[in-house]
């Protein structure tokens, strides 16, 4: 699989797409999020897998997003996500609240090719009350009364992930973050930025194969060094807490956020990300 440029990858994501983004500890492609901002993407729907972090706040602040489905949006130690909160308050985005295992379950249903999957819990939560797409049925295997929630399969249009490496075949190594494999299996398209390319076929290596997403599921690869920054990439690099704190402070105001974008996102257009 021949890598494409980050900008070409961003151009391939249509306005209005449902884009799945893992949270800050689980290999989101922040590089692709920045490239989507640079290309002026509009009307994106974002899915937090299962929660949302830095990249989601950035895309919302840049006006690329109309809807967020997630179990939480947070900058971790840096606190609440300021642009998410502002957009919600101003009615610029719709928010579909979920709960972490429900998002995993909806993706697992899509991975399995079944129309729904059950999940325990949830009953009595107002999340369920606000999700007409989630159904409660009587457990057909129970002797007595036993309500249980069924969640519909969810198949994102695009999964935007950042892997450690991609090989010549297009296999992408994500290590122990196996929920990304489920996400990849469930998604219509996987767009993966990676730190680096490696020769050969990682599936031939018993030690590397278990951490791979097979090229079967991968539509395109782009090399983006430090493409998860400012969030962490497994043991490659750590969370840049100082930068995220700086972001959180600047993004408290629209003007500060614009200054951040100018400095850290738009200025990269010429530079190789």
């Amino acid at each position, binding site marked *: 699989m021949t890598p494409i440029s980050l900008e070409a990858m961003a151009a391939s994501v249509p306005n209005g797409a449902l884009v799945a983004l893992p949270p800050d500890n689980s290999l989101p492609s922040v590089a692709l999020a920045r490239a989507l901002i640079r290309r002026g993407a509009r009307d994106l729907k974002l899915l937090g897998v299962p929660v949302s972090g830095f990249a989601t706040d950035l895309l919302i602040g840049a006006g690329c997003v109309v809807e967020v489905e997630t*179990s939480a949006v947070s900058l971790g130690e840096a606190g*609440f996500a300021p642009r998410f909160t502002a957009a919600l308050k101003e009615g610029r985005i719709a928010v579909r609240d979920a709960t972490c295992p429900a998002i995993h379950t909806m993706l697992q249903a899509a991975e399995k090719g079944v129309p729904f999957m059950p999940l325990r819990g949830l009953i009595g939560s*107002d999340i369920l009350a606000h999700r007409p797409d989630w159904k409660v049925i009587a457990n057909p295997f129970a002797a007595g009364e036993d309500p249980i929630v069924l969640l519909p399969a969810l198949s994102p249009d695009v999964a935007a992930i950042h892997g450690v490496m991609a090989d010549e075949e297009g296999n992408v190594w994500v290590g122990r973050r196996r929920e990304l494999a489920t996400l990849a299996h469930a998604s219509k398209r996987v767009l993966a930025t990676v730190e680096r390319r490696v020769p050969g076929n990682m599936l031939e290596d018993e030690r590397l194969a278990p951490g791979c997403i097979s090229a079967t599921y991968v539509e395109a690869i782009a090399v983006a060094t430090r493409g998860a920054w400012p969030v962490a990439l497994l043991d490659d690099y750590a969370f840049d807490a100082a930068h995220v704190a700086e972001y959180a402070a600047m993004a408290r105001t629209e003007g500060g956020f614009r200054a951040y974008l100018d400095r850290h996102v738009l200025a990269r257009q010429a530079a190789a990300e």
Partner: protein
Amino acid sequence: MSIRPEERVAAALARLILDPSAPPARHIAVGAASPIPAAACWLVRKQGHPVRLSLLHKRSGNPFTEGSRELFDLTGQGRIDLFFLGGGQIDGQANINLVGTGEWPGTGVRFPGSFGSAFMYLMTPRTILFREEHSPRVLVQQVDMISAPGVSPPAVFRRGTAQALVTGRCVFRFHPDRARFALESVHPGESVESVRAATGFDFDAAGTVPETPDPTDAELALLRGPVCDEMLETYPEFCARVFGRRHAA
């Protein structure tokens, strides 16, 4: 060195974890934003109790090999005995609200969101609710919206409820049979009256309520030594602030 409030609360949480009247806590999961519960768990471990700790956001040696789904699967299997939850609001029926205030989905104050609470609270045999801020703003008569319910009708599959609610002012026990909290102990400087004044919900209290005990010297030594050692990587700011120690660069 005087006893820090965080140390007192950690020791109180450790005693709740070890409560012999509660179901056993063999495997405890602790989230990222919970340094005091994590300290309590490590204290239990360092006291020699064979509890397994899964620190969800531990970067090196993260316990999960199926990614973030595994915690929920583990809990679904009944393998997680105890979890900690907080809340932007917590009410007198132990309902928790991590969504926001005002109208759905948070037209007043928007909190981050419910995370896994709508599942974990029902599927874990024991939950300890923990929130340092103890004010009428947080501890309300009724939450504006329910992320996860404090109690459930008998027909609903549920493994357990809140065991207790620990705050910066006191320890409450939760009684699921009557869906009410009872004041168990007040931290030094607090009284039944001061707690009532700071609490938006009604609760039960005996005539005299004991003070939350000080951590013992042994507990303090463990907290400041081996517990802090374990926590330096994951909670560097907490360790610096509470224990005055920094992670070697």
